[in-house]
């Protein structure tokens, strides 16, 4: 019996190696597996949310399940439909939960159900066991799961990566030097299973909401960028407008 026959009968199969996760930014974020995005200090949740939507939200259509804990909604508000990309091809199902345990259960249920194409859970804490369960469910069902965690979340995790997000002064606005420009964030990758050597790396990111591109900018780590002096061109515009 040759190999092809054996294989056809299901007696042997070639080892299915898991697809290699690209060991470069964003280290598998948005692909099946569990990823965590945490605030780096109180008040950075908007940055974490912005990074989440910029890094993975753009291409995902179908049903999103967004689990959120009531205490977080009361503190930092909710993500409006207007801020989400792809309005026409997407349905967002929000699950409101009272505690983190229920939130993690709902996230797992959503992954297993096969109804969701993306699961996002905003909970106050997560433990190793839950993150392991979510990782297994996520890889088995091929649904990306992202936990958005508060700054206080430090413990062990089984997630593929944990990002820590901080707001940075925005990019200079080309049209008006006094106005905020494209948002910039500092993302530190705290844990990364795909590329352990990348752990601790810092990325300064800029999100362009016109071209929908997330780019790494250099030389931003040291303090706010000074807006450029108004050139003749934009000075003229200001006067005219």
């Amino acid at each position: 019996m040759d190999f092809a026959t054996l294989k056809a009968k299901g007696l042997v199969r070639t080892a299915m190696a898991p697809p290699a996760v690209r060991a470069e930014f964003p280290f598998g974020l948005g692909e099946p597996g569990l990823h965590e995005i945490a605030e780096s200090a109180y008040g950075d949740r908007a940055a974490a949310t912005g990074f989440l939507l910029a890094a993975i939200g753009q291409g995902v259509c179908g049903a999103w399940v967004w689990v959120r804990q009531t205490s977080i909604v009361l503190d930092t508000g909710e993500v409006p439909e207007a801020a989400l990309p792809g309005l026409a091809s997407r349905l967002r199902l929000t699950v409101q939960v009272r505690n983190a345990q229920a939130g993690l259960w709902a996230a797992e249920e959503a992954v297993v159900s096969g109804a969701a194409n993306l699961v996002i859970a905003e909970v106050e804490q997560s433990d190793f066991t839950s993150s392991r369960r979510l990782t297994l469910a996520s890889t088995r069902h091929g649904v990306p799961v992202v936990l958005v965690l508060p700054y206080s979340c430090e413990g062990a995790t089984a997630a593929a990566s944990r990002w820590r997000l901080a707001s940075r002064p925005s990019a200079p606005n080309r049209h008006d030097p006094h106005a905020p420009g494209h948002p910039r964030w500092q993302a530190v990758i705290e844990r990364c299973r795909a590329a352990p050597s990348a752990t601790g790396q810092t990325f300064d990111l800029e999100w362009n909401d016109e071209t929908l591109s997330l780019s790494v900018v250099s030389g931003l780590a040291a303090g706010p960028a000074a807006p450029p002096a108004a050139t003749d061109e934009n000075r003229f515009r200001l006067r005219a407008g």
Partner: protein
Amino acid sequence: MSANASARAVGIEPGLRLTDAKATLPDLLSEEIDRTADLKALTALAAWMVRFSPLVALDGEDGLMMETTGCDHLFGGEAALVAGMSHRLVQAGHGHRIAMAGTPGAAHALARGTGLGEPPVLPSGREAEGLAHLPMATLRLSPEALTLLRRFGLTRIGQLYEIDRKALTRRFRSRQAADAVCLRLDQALGRRAEPFAPLRPPPEHVERLPCPEPLTSSEGIGDGLQQLTEKLCSALAVQGLGAQGFMFSAFRSDGGTSTVTVNAARPVRTPDHVLRLFREKISRIDAGFGIDLLMLEASRTGPMAPGSRPLSGDLAGTGFDAEAVSGLADRITARLGEGSVILTVRDARHPPDKAERQIAYAGQVPEVEAAPILGPRPVRMLNRPEQVSVMAQVPDGPPLQFVWRRRLRKVVRADGPERIAPEWWTYLPPAPGERGRLPRTRDYYRIEDSDGRRYWVFREGLYGDDRGMDPEWFVQGLFA
């Protein structure tokens, strides 16, 4: 006044005054009648009686009326049904009298009028004969009518049969009073229809599982539920229906009932799905000393289109599997409670905090026409705008410093304003002589503080718009 058996033995009859009764028996025990508690107990008993027939109604303050048509064969005939019912009630410790007849009126009269030795089942069509010797008081007449009839010497129902209706009507003060007597008589004899109002609407589909040995274990209940669900779902499938509500009742042998209900967002009939919904709640069934009957009812049934799934996501118009989404919502709702699954729909409203509305997911995704988004919108919107105190400001410009959540924030850059007019049509004019709050326009600014955090703030009102005090500042949302 009511009296129990031992009181009646010494000659104290219901309807006697308490003073007279006390005179007969000085150490008589008496208690105020608690009608509310009676009604509650009677309703609970009615819920338990559902095990015999789904149609149970309250009959006055002390009776239950049941429609048993088509139910008697489950118990081996009408006599066996009555005997079984009586046996159960004795076991549960309820004193009772049962009668069965072709009309509600006849059953009412029989239950209250017959002696102990008589057979309680009156075959249909023989009402006139069966009721003839019963006292007039069992005919559900008003006290005035009863008094009048007694004065004429009419004390048995049979005496009414021969009397000419016209002659009877003339004896009463009003036509209505006479008609009421005739109506009750006709209803008892089956000459006129009587509506039957059951406590709860009859279920459209029901499956029952009597247990030869009382169940006490949760495994037994789970197995029973599984059998019932499979039977019920195949019954639904035969008719091409699905149900949105399922009620599982367990009847205890001591006369108690426990019930759990699950709801689905759209009609379902997959046994696995229904069982999963019940799994979260099955522990609430109290087995007590043993359960001897399980029942599963389906309500809110509707047609189910046997849909086929699109082969790939691209072929589906919506891009998501509506059935799977609905199943997920059901399971989450069953565990976390009603209203946990929310849809956000856009609303064509001016104020940004009202441009979106959250509704509980109910199986359908509503098509809402939304106004286009005009300006930049923040990634997080606070539930309600939070007022801030502004330290330094220029009129008609963004703040230079402000305190939000007890921290001073210095504004480095700002953009705006985006002026959003109020919805003047939603305000009512103030009553004359009263200063109402007039709608004020809002100027929204996108600002960034020295920490690099970006906010969406607005000033409610303009300086010198003559619509109240100086304008106030609020934080509406947070930009990424």
